[in-house]
């Protein structure tokens, strides 16, 4: 039970219960405003009836030709609201808008190779690893995690414009690229 609504600039005053969690980064205000000033329809919030924020997703549309796609930049749910299908719902919205409004071929995202919860979830939602990106992230600064902590999986899910699933491949985990190739 949650309200799904657009992300608004002033939600930045309310997102502490989500952003104080270590998996979620707080960026400069320009980061959020740049998403909202270009892809407001790919940014949404889940809110409890009390008005408390539960989670949000920020996305964008990018790429050219057959690489034109929707991208999930940040997806996060506050610890106390996890496992309530909130992420699933927000991903569904983002995929729907990427498909129907932007007419992208696929949706993609990056996720730390150590973030097994998220990787499992994305796989459950139909995403698969397209490639592994070396040193995409900085260290979380919480001890050992090593390469897996800093490397990212680039995961993708084809949309209706890619019925032949050309945008994905089966052996993505073995395809390794460096961060400046993406």
């Amino acid at each position, binding site marked *: *039970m*949650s*309200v*799904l*609504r*657009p992300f*608004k*600039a*002033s939600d*930045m*005053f*309310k997102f*502490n*219960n989500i*952003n*104080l*969690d*270590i*998996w979620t980064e*707080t*960026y*400069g*205000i*320009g980061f959020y*405003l*740049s998403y*909202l*000033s*270009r892809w*407001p*329809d790919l940014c*949404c919030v889940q809110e*409890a*009836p*009390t008005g*408390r924020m539960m989670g949000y997703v920020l996305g964008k549309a990018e790429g050219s030709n057959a690489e034109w796609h929707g991208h999930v930049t940040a997806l996060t749910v506050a*610890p*106390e*609201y996890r*496992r*309530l*299908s909130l992420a699933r*719902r927000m991903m569904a*919205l983002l995929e*729907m*808008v990427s498909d*129907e*409004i932007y007419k992208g071929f696929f949706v993609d995202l990056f996720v730390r190779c150590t973030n097994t919860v998220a990787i499992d979830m994305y796989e459950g939602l139909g995403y698969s690893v397209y490639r592994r990106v070396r040193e995409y992230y900085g260290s*979380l600064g*919480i*001890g050992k995690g090593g390469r897996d902590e800093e490397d990212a999986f680039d995961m993708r899910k084809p949309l209706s414009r890619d019925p032949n699933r050309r945008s994905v491949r089966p052996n993505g985990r073995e395809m390794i690229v460096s961060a400046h190739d993406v």
Partner: protein
Amino acid sequence: MSTAALDRQIRPIYDALDTGSNKSAIVACNKLLKKHPKNELVKALKALALVRSQKVEESLVLCDEVLEEKPTSDAVLTAMMHVLRGLGRHNDMVTMFEEAYKQQPTNEELGVQTFFANVRANHWKSAQQIATRMHKQFQEDRYLYWSVISSVLQAKDASTPKTMRTILYKLAHRMITSSPTPPYLNADRFHLHLSILSELELFDEARKLLDSEVGRNICATSLSCNEVRRELWKRQGLVREEGERAEKLIKEKGDRNWLEFLAVLDATFDCLVISPTDVAPTTLEDAKKECATRVQETRVLFTRVAEEDGSKDRSGLLALLELEKRARDHGVSEEPTRLVDLMERYFNEIGDKVCCFEDLKPYTLLGSDEHCRWIAFLERVPSMFSSIDGLRRFINAYKFLRHSLTSSEITADTESARVALYAKKYMEALPLGSDLPTTELQPADDLVLLAGNTFISLWKLTEDDNNLFKAASLLEFALTKSKQSFLVRLMLIRVYRLLGAPSLALEHYRAMHVKQVQHDTLSHLILSRASTFSLAAMGDLTLATECLESTQIYLSNSQETGDFVVRAFTGEKYSQIPQFILFEDRLENSLQRDTVKVEHLRMRLTHEPITSDIIDMELIELKFIFDRTHHDNRDFDILPSYQPRISPNLNELTLLLGRPEGHGWLSTFLQVYIRAFQQSSDLDDTVEEKLLIGDRPKQTADYDRHLSLRERLCEQNEEYLKTLTSDELAFVHYARALADWLEPYHDYTRPPPAAVLAEAAKQTELKTGHPLKGIDIPPNGASHGQKKDEEPPAVRDPPELVVKHFEKLKMRFEEVQSKSPVDVLHVATLAQEAYLLFIIESLRFKPASVVKVNKLGGLVSSFKCIRTGAISVLKEISSELIKRADFEGTSEGPKCFIGLEELDPDFVLGLSKKVIDARKKVFEGVGKGLGRITATYAS
């Protein structure tokens, strides 16, 4: 030289500017200016380099020169745009672009820039006119929309009179309907069109748009358009239609947005929403009958949803609860046990989720039988847990049980028993999470938070600080198990501040990595009334620096947010523009921003020499702040409060000194300081106007415009004063008495504005080599010691409130010795502040010549008495504090803290030492700082 050659020489200047080498940029400009003294671009670039090296006065001279030339070249305009933004002169920027556009009316890019300059300055009316003109000339659709949204923004602007609003919306409507292209070309245009129709209540027209195929599609994919649609239907009273639409979505599309459930609920009870005056009782009965049928139908729908979704989605179950609650409120519920049945069912299905507590909280106000049943149900939840799900259920049950305690159940004994139970259960539950990676939160954390809440409640009941210490020790232990728990840290921050151990609070605050906009919402945790703990007087600037760091975000806001407003225009994201402007305003006029400003000022005055420079600068800034309407963006909900419903929440319980800081506090301290600075300063309004560099910020404060500033400064708002601590109140009364007493002497002695301006002009000329623009120096250069026609005001004895203040403080200081360290520090730092205020107020009368010319010898001799008395009190307080620092932790000192039995004694001892050291540090620092101040301002 050819232009190409000149271009080649200008390029390095840009490079230097880009890399931040402003010095070398200035050197390069000077070289070029020798050969091309009239070159506008080089002048503009030099002005830019000067602004960026804080050489504002010099930059101003060049800036004005370039502006006088009315530049039109793109490069010059761009450079000047940065200069003017750096100087905060948005109005000049508007003029500059308007002049350029006037000269080249066919230059579309100039038109766009002129429009944006107006946007940045929030000049919506001119923006609208420019956009209209551009639309006529360049025939681009988007200019029409720019003009439309400019009217809407003008209507929304706080400074626009209410009566104008409808007219502006009508104008916007006329323009938007004149568009040759249909509104649904993109969602944001559609959104803009709909919001105007909604505002003007043009429902039929809106309906036409919404019922079209495209309109329906847009609403199905755009949350923001759908939001306006909802609003429109609500305004039109289409509650039932909305309900039917929502029902379809829930049934057919599996939509689980709670807004749809609310729509169905509203529709269910719509037949009862009739004004009771025009309805005869029989029809009311009929309405109730109808409603009861509808409730039945809705129940069927929700029950089906609940059964379909199971524990996967809680919407159906919660909707059933809400339905029953509303049915009861409307007197159409026929099943007295249903609500508790549903609550139990909800708990059974969702009890293993953390949010169960928050979800059910609104339904827990029950009649006594139901209450007993609910409590009995909760008490049956097994307290043996073998799984994380079981543990969560158990925790939820505990939270509800605590939440529903009655006042007779909250005593020191019962709370002690509870806290022991929570701690015990916590230890038992810990192993369940022992395999989780260190990045995960521990499922047992909530038990510690419950215990922490209870210790704090015990502390309130017993006033025994040891309860705070016990809370700290358990919470610190929990952090070793759950390294990422920010909720535990938040509670620790509050606890350590109450214990008088601010450095430990700061450690935890830093560990939370608060950044960017979070500074605005969270810095209150560490900075509210922070001058109580400030060691700035003895040179330790930790907290003062924390103040400055937390204010970086406001700079980013003023530098960046405007750019994104412009970007939203360029990208035609009209739905975002009003929101960005609102966001910018909330940050710009943030209550926390200015509260920190005042807190920082209080620290600054203990650290920097008090001179007329500081006073003048702060005066101007504080006056701007005083004219603002403040927005309170502080986040208090983040504190994990698990207190009984009838008790104050965690935030209220743990406020430093027991008082909230807010509009009242800020306004009162602003009054004190502005009044003192204004008396002490030579700047009057006319002088200030001349010396001001940037635009004057908008006055947004809501006050009676007939009042003079002086009247506003002297106003006493009882509500505001109630939010102060008794010691702050005494300080405010003292400050007022002091200012009232000295006002006539200040007014008499202050040099006339012309003399002040002449002096300022002289200083500027010495500094920059250029005279100050627009100021004529009177030939005989009026000086401070000038003779006056009037006699000086008769010297009066200082008022009782001033004379006795420090003596009273001494007594008060003795009184609080038995209280918390925070109270002791509060009295000590306010004594220091009172003395510094006296220094500010008496600064003008320091030079012997001033005293002599103005015949104020009598006044000055009464200063001497006050000063001697104050210094002796301050010295005594200082040495008491230092003594107390030595005393902390010795065997005669306050007993060592006692931790919990469950914890390792060494762990507890270590923590106890840390707390004592932190207290020692602040006692000693404040004590020595006071000593320093008495030495600095000894005479």
